[in-house]
């Protein structure tokens, strides 16, 4: 790969500035560069070049001194995000420093951040599902939040567009509420997953169990290799087999010659020009030197991640926008959403002892939403719905800890795979509530003396009712498909655990009640676009990243068209 141009000193003025280089920022950079715009990507962390900067990608457990464990000092550095249980010796370097970047939990909220080039696109779960009009019409139909300014038909071609480039593997199902993507061949279900699928679909007509739809290549694409089934994705993939900004969109942007990426650039605010009535650039703090600098451009894409983009807008005050850029409605910072997480059931599957699998598939099964689709499936306990992720496998030596046994025979028995187990865990849609919010905290400053965020968010009655149903349904489904030793669970995780933060700068039709218009432009400052999770008007129950990609590509093309017409 050609080296990235990081010499932003040469030039302080660009056609476009993109704030952030994660999933949506990478797409903004690619689309803007490919359309001929000289684009500056500002990344608050360090450069992470594909392959070169994946230090743990090939390490076996015994290659690491602590075989995955981390020191008390590193645990402290990740004292907030570490609650996820996902941070270890293999990927610690891709997680943000919570000590340097504090935030305040008015109510418990886990905020997982990744401050480096590529952001959380290195770490994400890669599950990709299209949203449908069930989602885009939901607010209008049940009166929660405000209406989305778009419908499925507006975004459908952009889903196809990004899927063809990102590479999504999966199986077509023909469901109108979970539209099929442009798919690469699906990964395979294992014996027990196939067995459970058969029983489940027979017991529950209208419910489906499918292989997860994921941004992993099952065939080579554009010079990227296919998945090798090592399941070491969060260390960075040497084959470029899963979608990340580092492996996919940023190299494409770079190939145009139009990209400059400036690392260690913390965007402090967007500069609004009162006379021109638009944004003219951004003010940054160099994270290494603390130098404050200004960069200028005709359009600005805000892709810092849902809460960070909103933080930047809140911090961008001017005579015209005393309460934050684009905050005429007072909705900036409000309507924060996530998905509920880790509520479900698991059990043991009898039989199949003579069967095993080969490869470590970085993917599981999915059970699409089946409630509140129509009159027939309507629930009187809650609005919206949920889907399940899960999977089957054989227990390994770890299960030995619970066996009431020890000694030589015990040890040797653990060399063989144990019983088959199967689990499902639900993800429920969260409603947009005005009082689930973030706001600037000027009492707690970060390492660079900047105000931080306070997060005040909680699950309310509808989410609790959905979670209750998830647990009951999960248990019942596993019982009816014939599993034994079933354990149902609700870990009562606070918001943030879904790592699907959405909202706080929502799209809407009416500038009085929303921050962004139907093409992700700040209503009253149209050359500022926000296309990450902040823009979401509702949360659906399916994973949001694919929708960020599609919205970003769509908005970038709109920006280019408008620039050509001199409308921005």
């Amino acid at each position: 790969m050609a080296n990235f141009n990081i010499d932003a000193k040469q030039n302080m003025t660009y056609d476009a500035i993109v704030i952030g280089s994660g999933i949506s920022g990478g797409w903004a950079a690619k689309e803007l560069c490919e359309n001929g715009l000289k684009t500056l990507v500002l990344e608050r962390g360090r450069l992470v070049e594909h392959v070169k900067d994946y230090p743990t990608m090939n390490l076996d457990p015994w290659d690491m001194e602590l075989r995955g464990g981390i020191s008390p000092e590193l645990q402290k550095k990740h004292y907030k995000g570490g609650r996820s249980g996902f941070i270890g010796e293999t990927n610690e370097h891709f997680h943000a420093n919570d000590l340097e970047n504090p935030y305040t939990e008015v109510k418990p909220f886990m905020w997982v951040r990744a401050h480096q080039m590529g952001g959380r696109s290195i770490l994400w779960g890669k599950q990709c599902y299209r949203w449908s009009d069930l989602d885009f019409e939901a607010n209008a139909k049940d009166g929660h939040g405000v209406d989305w300014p778009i419908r499925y038909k507006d975004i459908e071609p952009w889903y196809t567009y990004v899927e063809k480039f990102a590479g999504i593997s999966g199986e077509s199902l023909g469901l109108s509420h979970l539209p099929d993507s442009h798919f690469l061949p699906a990964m395979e279900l294992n014996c027990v997953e196939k067995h459970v699928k058969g029983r489940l679909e027979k017991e529950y007509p209208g419910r489906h169990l499918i292989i997860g739809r994921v941004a992993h290549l099952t065939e080579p694409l554009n010079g990227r290799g296919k998945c090798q089934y090592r399941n070491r994705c969060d260390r960075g993939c040497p084959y470029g087999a899963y979608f990340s900004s580092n492996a996919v969109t940023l190299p494409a942007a770079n190939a145009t010659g139009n990209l400059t990426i400036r690392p260690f650039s913390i965007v402090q605010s967007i500069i609004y020009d009162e006379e021109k009535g638009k944004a003219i650039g951004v003010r940054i703090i160099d994270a290494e030197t603390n130098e404050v600098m200004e960069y200028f451009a005709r359009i600005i894409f805000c892709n810092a991640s849902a809460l960070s983009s909103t933080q930047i807008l809140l911090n961008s005050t001017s005579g015209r926008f005393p309460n934050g850029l684009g905050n005429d409605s007072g909705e900036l910072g409000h309507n924060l959403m996530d998905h509920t997480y880790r509520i479900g059931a698991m059990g043991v599957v009898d039989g199949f002892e003579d069967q095993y699998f080969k490869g470590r598939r970085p993917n599981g099964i999915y059970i699409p939403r089946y409630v509140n689709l129509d009159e027939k499936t309507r629930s009187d306990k809650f609005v919206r719905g949920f889907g399940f992720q899960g999977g089957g496998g054989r227990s390994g030596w770890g299960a030995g800890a619970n066996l009431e046994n020890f000694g030589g025979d015990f040890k040797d028995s653990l060399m063989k795979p144990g019983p088959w187990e199967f689990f499902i865990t639900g993800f429920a849609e969260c409603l947009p509530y005005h009082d689930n919010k973030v706001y600037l905290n000027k009492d707690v400053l970060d390492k660079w003396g900047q105000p931080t965020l306070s997060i005040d968010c909680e699950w309310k009655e509808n989410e609790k009712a959905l979670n209750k149903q998830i647990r009951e349904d999960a248990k019942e489904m596993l019982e009816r498909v014939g599993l034994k030793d079933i354990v149902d669970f609700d870990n009562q995780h606070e918001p943030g655990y879904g790592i699907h933060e959405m909202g706080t700068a929502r799209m809407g039709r009416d500038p009085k009640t929303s921050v962004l218009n139907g093409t992700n432009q700040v209503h009253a400052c149209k050359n500022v676009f926000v296309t990450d999770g902040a823009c979401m008007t509702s949360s659906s129950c399916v994973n949001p990243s694919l929708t960020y990609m599609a919205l970003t590509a769509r908005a970038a093309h709109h920006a280019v068209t408008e620039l050509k017409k001199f409308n921005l």
Partner: protein
Amino acid sequence: MNRRNALKKSALLAGSAIAVPSLFSLLQSCKQQNRLDWAPVFLSEDQAKFISAFVDTLLPRTETPGALDVKTDIFLDLVFAKTYDTKAQENVVNEIKKFNEECKQRHGKVFADLNMEERMAVFKNKEAESPKFNPKVWGTAVGEQKPVGFYRSLKSMTLWGYFSSEEIGVKHLNYDPVPGEYRGCVPLSEIGNTWSL
């Protein structure tokens, strides 16, 4: 113990910075009869003997290597030293002390000095009285995990230390670092042992 060997081992284990105090404790230990042949980084010699005896009772050598063969005790000492905070380290020390006191009460000696039969009786008791781990989803326990106690916790760590060692991971489990494909249903007879990764 040969001084040169002792120096080599402790340096290998802990890096030069920690080699000096370790070496000191090792030289001290050479005076004793029932001595360790490795230099702990965190544990005292008596505590280290406990850990060695524990992992050996749990996973003794058979036709396949035992926990001592793959240095599981040495690894656990390193885990205590490098991943535990002071409070957790104090807890390990206290729990080993408690465990040994129970052994003294029942069998008149600390755990490391018991014969295999007595050790097995202790383990049997501990198995019966120790709470269990909740199942896990994506690496985290589901439901509210009650403390499992020192015995089961150390058992779990011993299994980790043993099965994540190179010797077991490469030669005894089924090692396939780059599978290249996923096949959902393969006869177990074609594969044999559990995948190591």
